[in-house]
């Protein structure tokens, strides 16, 4: 199980990073989303994996998973949600202002359409 | 007075039931709290749902519900059979038009939903003036019978309930 989780995190990181390195805003945003999944799961897995030991106190149950990473991940999820919302809006706002969604460093006003770089 | 503070009695009832479902226990505390919520929430949401028709025919509702439940069961078996055992090429899929007598949006929606949930038919569109339903049949050698079935089995009953 640990291997599955580790490889999933690795894969999510890889895919997120790859998309993050694209030259348009949308893949970048999606890449960030994937990356934040990876990071959230990473942080969660800090508390090690357990099955069916949710940190909800029950009579007679003594074994619980580590609740702290979960709380941290919750905070992280919410924060990354806020960030994602902002960057999504920022990307359309930028697109509207400069007429293209490049992030690869071409100056404002440079020809933008796909045809010029294929 | 009652109308003002209890705009949708039926809704209140439904919500109370939902609350009991949610808390998953039938206790005095749960019911009282649920009742408070079931009164408050319709008040809050009243502006979203004004002047809607009242449902009176409780017997009709129950009958309709049972029929539909049964039909759903049957529909599933039939569709499963079609999927599993018929060659896709031999399926006679087509769209049929069901002219409507119902006029209330709620009734039409219920009918359309029923059609979707029952054998081999899915409501895929509504005419712009809401006077016809476009129904897609998975396997309908005889389209007219489908239309008749719908009109007799469901629409008639709905008309009694809603109008």
């Amino acid at each position, binding site marked *: 199980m640990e291997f599955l989780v580790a490889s999933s995190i690795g894969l999510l990181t890889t895919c997120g990073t790859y998309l993050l390195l694209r030259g348009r805003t949308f893949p970048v945003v999606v890449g960030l989303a994937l990356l934040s999944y990876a990071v959230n799961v990473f942080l969660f897995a800090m508390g090690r994996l357990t099955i*069916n030991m949710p940190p*909800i106190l029950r009579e007679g149950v003594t074994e619980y998973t580590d609740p702290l990473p979960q709380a941290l991940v919750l905070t992280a999820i919410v924060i990354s949600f806020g960030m994602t919302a902002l960057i999504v809006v920022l990307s359309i706002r930028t697109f509207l202002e400069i007429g293209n969604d490049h992030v690869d460093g071409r100056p404002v006003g440079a020809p933008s359409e796909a045809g010029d770089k294929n | 007075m009652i109308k003002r503070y209890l705009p949708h009695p039926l809704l209140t009832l439904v919500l109370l039931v939902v609350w009991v479902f949610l808390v998953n226990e039938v206790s005095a505390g749960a019911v009282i709290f649920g009742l408070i919520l079931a009164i408050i929430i319709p008040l809050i949401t009243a502006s979203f749902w004004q002047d809607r028709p009242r449902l009176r025919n409780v017997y009709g509702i129950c009958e309709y519900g049972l029929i539909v439940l049964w039909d759903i069961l049957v529909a599933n078996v039939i569709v499963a059979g079609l999927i599993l055992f018929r060659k896709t090429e031999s399926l006679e899929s087509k769209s049929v038009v069901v002219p409507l007598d119902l006029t209330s949006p709620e009734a039409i929606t219920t009918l359309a939903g029923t059609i979707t949930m029952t054998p081999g038919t899915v409501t895929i569109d509504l005419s712009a003036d809401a006077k016809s339903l476009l129904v897609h049949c998975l396997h309908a050698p005889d389209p007219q019978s489908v239309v008749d079935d719908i009109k007799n089995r469901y629409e008639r009953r709905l008309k009694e309930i809603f109008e």
Partner: protein
Amino acid sequence: MIDYALNFGFICVALALLMNLYRLTVGPTTADRVLAVDTMAINAIALLVLYGIGKATAMYFEGALLFAMFGFVSTVAYCKFVLRGDIIE
């Protein structure tokens, strides 16, 4: 016996999810993909419920409920997007 049934159920749902995934990636139309995701949500709910039975806990019920609710909303949003572009107009 329930355990066997549960395992069978898991396998069914798992296969169903894989099929959904196939439809999602292959398409061909956007509607197919949306349908695939919607079905996935349904299958996920089933998975949760089965898992809850397996672990004999009601802890996962809210998860299933929210899956149902949110699965619907996101499907509607996708469809509205295809239909109108602007999902809130």
